[in-house]
């Protein structure tokens, strides 16, 4: 008893939830604005992890010993990596299909996702095998009762919190945020008000990509193993988190992600098979009981 619901497990769940939250935000923002499930979003996460990996070895020589600066530079690289791939994906794959049937974009998204994964594992410089992620920050641990808290937990939670606060401010307080909200409410009316829709969509993709990239770095630091297919499952689970919270809803994505993280950690502690399946069980339950998600608004079918 107590082993499943311990403080340790709650912390692990929050840590996993933070990573899911950063990915889920991108899903939910993109869905809110173009009504597309961006299947390739999990791969932006993977790119972020690889960008962090590459930049660590690049900057390590430049700023030897100053781990704070180094960590910041690596985070920046991961976010830029995620944002760039998101920008390119939107520009070349989704933009030409913007006014075609929705299913075309969805299938293209699957294609893009497959392309990124296999292209990366086909590149000799990256390859399909696992790589161990370097310790960017020296691991420290504090004992608190029965729980062992590593500084990584605190870093993961803090980075996710800072980024989420930043995003909330961006969406609520800036003109660009206002434009994003307008486009997600009504694209045509937004265009009539003189908003450059394509620019806003492109920006949304980049913010989502940057967040996924940051999540890639955090995941690499926390579960120190990266490989080209690492984005598939976290991507799916983060998507489910976004659906759980109400897709298109930013606070909903955060809430859903933390619930998912904690649920998955508890379930895995109980039984690994249940841990693997719980995300899909949650998805099916949500869709059957409350398809709009916890915080989502009800959408009526337009005739």
């Amino acid at each position, binding site marked *: 008893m107590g082993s499943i619901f311990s403080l340790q497990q709650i912390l692990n769940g929050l840590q996993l939830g933070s990573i899911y939250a950063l990915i889920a935000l991108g899903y939910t923002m993109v869905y809110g604005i173009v009504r*597309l*499930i961006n299947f390739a979003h999990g791969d932006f996460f993977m790119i972020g992890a690889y960008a962090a990996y590459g930049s660590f070895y690049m900057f390590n020589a430049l700023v030897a010993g100053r781990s704070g600066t180094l960590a910041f530079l690596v985070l920046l690289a991961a976010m830029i990596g995620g944002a760039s791939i998101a920008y390119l994906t939107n520009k070349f*794959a989704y933009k*030409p*299909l913007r006014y*075609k049937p*929705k*299913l*075309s*974009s*969805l*299938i*293209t998204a*699957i*294609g*893009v996702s*497959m*392309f990124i994964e*296999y*292209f990366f*594992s*086909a590149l*000799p410089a990256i*390859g*399909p095998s696992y790589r161990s992620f370097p310790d960017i920050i020296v691991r420290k641990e504090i004992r608190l009762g029965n729980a062992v808290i590593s500084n990584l937990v605190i870093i993961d939670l803090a980075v996710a919190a800072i980024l989420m606060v930043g995003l909330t401010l961006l969406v609520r307080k800036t003109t660009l945020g206002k434009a994003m909200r307008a486009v997600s409410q009504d694209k045509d009316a937004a265009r009539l008000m003189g908003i450059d829709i394509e620019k806003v969509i492109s920006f949304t993709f980049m913010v989502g990509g940057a967040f996924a990239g940051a999540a890639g770095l955090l995941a690499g630091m926390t579960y120190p193993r990266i490989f080209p297919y690492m984005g*598939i499952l976290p991507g*799916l689970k983060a*998507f*489910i988190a976004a*659906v759980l919270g109400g897709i298109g809803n930013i606070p909903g994505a955060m809430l859903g992600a933390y619930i998912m993280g904690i649920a998955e950690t508890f379930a895995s502690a109980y039984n690994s*098979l249940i841990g*693997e*399946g719980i*995300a*899909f069980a949650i*998805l*099916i339950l949500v*869709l*059957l009981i409350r*398809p709009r998600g916890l915080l989502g608004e009800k959408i009526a*079918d337009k*005739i």
Partner: protein
Amino acid sequence: MNVRKLPRFLIAVVLFYIVVEVLYRTEILNGYLLHIINLSLIYVILATSLNLINGITGQFSLGHMGFAGVGAYVSGSLTTLILKLSVTNPASMLPFLLSIIAGGVVAAFVGFLIGFPSLRLKGDYLAIVTLGFGEIIRTIFNNIDAVGGPRGLLGIPKFSNFTVILVAAFLTVVIIRNLIESSHGRAMLSIRENELAAELVGVNTTRYKVMAFTFGAFFAGIAGGLLAHLIQLAHPTQFGFIKSVEVLIMIYAGGVGSLTGSILAAFGLTFLSEGLRLGIRALADATGLPIGGEWRMVVYALLLIFIMLFRNEGLMGMRESRIIKNVEVD
């Protein structure tokens, strides 16, 4: 009634059978090529049955190989573990065929169950649920020790041969075609065209969506069983998401809603896939560069993206060849 009605498709298939058999007997066609033809025919079953769900009824399933996995494991367990059939015994053929059908029936039942949550879901959500279902199936196979767990179910007798597979593919296409040309098929088409309008004119959309899933899953189960008895193995990775996407590419390359397109694309892409596999290996050997098999999937992914960007309707669009059509419909 149509007086000129000829079983054109039957004639075409019989001709195909004779040509392949003659070429094989005269050793112009080697065992490897025959194997690729067999694989293509199994993909014909998978692609046409997925087309019934995605193309005709306008739903979106991403877990088609999950159904095939159910068929493969059920029929494989029956023939290998329970009945312990042997290929040398001619009396084994009937129990083998019954096992394959049993696999199809179980897969159909699973499809029926999956069809239900799909009733409340559209497009992207349905895609995710079916994807999740496929992954759950794969995880379950991975964790059942009796069927080999992650090692897969080994030592399945090689019952599938060209004749059996061709007959199965022929029956699949004919049944799906007849279904499409019946009033049930019209109802399914109407759901694809406009679900709300279909409902308003009295089409029981729930019933037809579940029907499409059940039929589609049945044939996928048959295909999975035949595949397992062709390659003598049922392995969890054969039925994962990527494999489902390969079938998906076939129906979009061929044209959603066109059985002719699915058949052509199943052959074309299976041969392309093998060609790429050999070509990449040859290139790697010739140049000494580390060119991996992943490039094959890169080509596949690009193909899918380009079809969507530049030829949305696929090879055939919604057109059907006269060879396959039974009745002339305008």
